[in-house]
């Protein structure tokens, strides 16, 4: 039904899409696979009229087509489920669905008629939502159902799903896949964008892989494996699960008792949380985004004052300390938002590495910076952690996400910390860098650092951690052994089912 031929799109300094061919037949799920920046989103934004291609042709049902804006796309039966939901939070489900459509009552809204149709669609495709509920009151999984209903309501026959599973629990993913398979069987064409290999293998009929804006391969799902797909994405063989030996946990290095942390908008985001992390182990914290993981990390780092409870790092109570004081007790922190909290984009690599040591007398000479010593220190870290940067004086923002993260990790681990808190250490990072970061975390563990790794990526949680704690609404639902636990078990806990109930 869809043919895209020779699509090329240039941005200043980047070729985001380089002569890409892509097609979709009715009744199939064609996956676009690739790392961040490989050009998946660019291609789909061109198809949906958010970008204009510099070269190339789009044909729908054999007819050449020019899509200038989303309205054109919608008119031609193309629907897009965006990674960041395109919903208006204060509006109701029905209003969100009706938005932009002609009303059957002229200038007045016809929300009752819209609501009826929403309920019908919900029954046909298992997408149950209350049409009169405002979006902000709904869980993420429900919000996604609204997004799909929006497209179906507009009679979309070609659906683009941009990383639809990123914010869902494994059970919600299963439920979504049931709906998507039904749509496929009804003759819709589905474009599925993802970098989660097991999901791609479970849902797709065909897989096209992009790297640096180019198609590196297009294969049927039969015969594809995670390893073969990863190789096409990266361009070389990759190890998906890091090698690691048995952990030798020592004493408790990070001890959290009765911790409560308030959210910005009121209410406790972390509620009476107890947690121990031992020296020489990696405790993975799994959970759907927004269940208090970030508040926990910030509270440990001294960036957010808890309303109750205690946090001990290597035996020292750190609640009430400034972030700088917390660091002196032996904490290293790799924040979730690396460009906001982890690095300063306009500072050079060398300056970013110095950020936590700028008062250290090793780098000072009579109170002034000793640039020789600073350079030597950063050169050593950049080499050791294979940070790819043209020079030490390159602004950090010019580095790729993976190299910025390696730079941050180099800086944080340089002081051989007692405790490392790493939030989403490989999110948005290319597979090669992720592989390296995982190896490095395990090496640090073997050097007796206690590591608390917060991650929403279950592959990472299972592959790297020695124990897995699951957070839901600010509490630990349970702690499992990743060698024996199943994804389903962890998924249920992520959805709020206590550990005992899952057994």
């Amino acid at each position, binding site marked *: 039904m869809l043919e895209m031929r020779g699509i090329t799109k240039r941005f200043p300094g980047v070729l985001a899409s380089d002569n890409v061919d892509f097609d979709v037949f009715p009744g199939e799920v064609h996956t676009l696979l690739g790392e961040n920046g490989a050009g998946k989103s660019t291609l789909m*934004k061109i198809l*949906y009229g*958010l*970008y204009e291609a510099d070269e190339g042709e789009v044909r729908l049902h054999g007819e050449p087509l020019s899509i200038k*804006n*989303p*309205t054109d796309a*919608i008119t031609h039966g193309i629907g*897009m489920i*965006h990674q960041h*939901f*395109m*919903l*208006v*939070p*204060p*509006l109701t489900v029905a*209003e*969100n669905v*009706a*938005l*932009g*459509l*002609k*009303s059957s009552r002229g*200038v*007045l*809204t016809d929300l009752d008629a819209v609501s009826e149709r929403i309920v019908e669609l919900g029954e046909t495709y298992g997408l149950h939502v209350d049409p009169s509920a405002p979006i902000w009151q709904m869980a993420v999984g429900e919000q996604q159902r609204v997004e799909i209903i*929006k497209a179906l309501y507009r009679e979309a026959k070609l659906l683009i799903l941009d990383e639809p599973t990123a914010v869902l629990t494994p059970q919600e993913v299963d439920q979504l896949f049931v709906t998507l398979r039904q749509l496929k069987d009804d003759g819709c064409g589905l474009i599925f964008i993802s970098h989660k290999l097991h999901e791609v293998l479970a849902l797709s009929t065909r897989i096209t892989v992009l790297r640096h804006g180019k198609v590196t391969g297009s294969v049927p799902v039969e015969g594809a494996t995670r390893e073969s797909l990863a190789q096409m994405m990266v361009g070389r063989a990759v190890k998906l699960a890091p090698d690691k030996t048995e952990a030798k946990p020592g004493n408790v290095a990070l001890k959290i008792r009765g911790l409560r942390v308030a959210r910005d908008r009121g209410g406790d985001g972390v509620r009476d949380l107890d947690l121990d992390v031992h020296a020489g182990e990696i405790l993975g914290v799994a959970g759907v985004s927004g269940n208090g993981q970030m508040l926990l990390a910030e509270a440990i780092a001294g960036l957010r004052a808890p309303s109750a409870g205690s946090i001990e790092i290597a035996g020292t109570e750190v609640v009430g300390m400034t972030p700088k004081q917390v660091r002196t007790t032996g904490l290293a922190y790799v924040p979730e938002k690396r460009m906001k909290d982890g690095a300063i984009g306009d500072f050079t690599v060398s300056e970013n590495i110095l950020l936590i040591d700028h008062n250290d007398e090793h780098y000072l000479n009579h109170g002034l910076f000793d640039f020789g010593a600073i350079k030597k220190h950063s050169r050593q870290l950049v080499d050791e952690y294979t940070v790819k940067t043209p020079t030490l004086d390159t602004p950090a923002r010019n580095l790729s996400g993976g190299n910025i993260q390696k730079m941050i990790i180099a800086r944080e681990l340089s002081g051989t910390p007692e405790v490392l808190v790493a939030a989403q250490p490989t999110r948005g990072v290319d597979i090669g860098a992720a592989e390296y970061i995982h190896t490095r975390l395990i090496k640090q563990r073997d050097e007796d650092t206690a590591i608390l790794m917060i991650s929403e990526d279950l592959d990472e949680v299972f592959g790297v951690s020695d124990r897995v704690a699951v957070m839901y609404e600010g509490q630990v639902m349970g702690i499992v052994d990743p060698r024996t636990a199943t994804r389903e078990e962890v998924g249920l806990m992520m959805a709020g089912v206590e550990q005992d109930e899952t057994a």
Partner: protein
Amino acid sequence: MSDFFTEAVLIATVAGGIRLAVPLLFASLGEMFGQRSGVLNLGVDGVMLLGAFGGYYAVLKTDNVWLGLLVGVAIGVVFGLITAVMSVTLKAEQGISGIGIYLFGLGFSDLLFQKWVGTPLPIKAFPKINIPVLSDIPIIGEMLFRHSAVVYIAFAAVPLSMFIINRTNFGMKIRAVGENPEAADSLGVSVTKVRYATLIIGGLLAGVAGAALAIDLKIFQQNLTNAAGFIAIALVYFGAWRPLGVMGGALLYGFVNSIVLQLKTLGIIPRSWSDIAAMAPAIVTILALVIVAQRFKPPAALTKPFERGR
């Protein structure tokens, strides 16, 4: 003080408060439309001044108050369009560009007044309309139903605004564009068109507010509005971006103002205090704003220009 609590004075105070609320009500409702769609327009007072002079001048020349109001409408629409070009098309910083419009309106209205009129001459006011039956109710009738036509128009604009925002397709688009323009755009709603429309409505109502003020006072002078346009912006926050709330704010401001005026006239407030007393309405409104506004969130996209695909 006992002079104040006589029937005649109380009636005059309430009726006066309602009258004083009218220009603010027009201007605030207009500003509310813009803000609900995500545009903060700080130029209201400037447009009010231009509308006030235009309205005054038209009535001075033609003796037709309705033509005066119409001139206010026309000036408002033109400046609403200019505001839209600056904030929507050119994506100017909204905190700054509106101040430009304000300063232009402040200076230009006075310039034209000096050039074309010079010595202030009084003009005709709006005719009073006593609503049949209702105006005969003792006390209440005198307070509420013996006003000029613009007063009724202003208060009729409140339910009309509620209806537009909550019940029409256009209103739904306004709300969507103000909260999440990317989502509205992805569904084919033109963010640009919606914002142009709300800013033109806002300009129109600011122009009307100015003309209504000048014709009600039967006079024009430099800075006639005395920053009422800025109070109108504050009232939008006070009213939590809802027509009824905005009306409540305008009435509060009008009543406090009216009470202070009465107390001064009756000599209860000594002359030497009158400047301080003149600040009372603004202080009361701002205090109320601080208390009330914290409970409500402004439209999420307020002051943020929209650009497709980031």
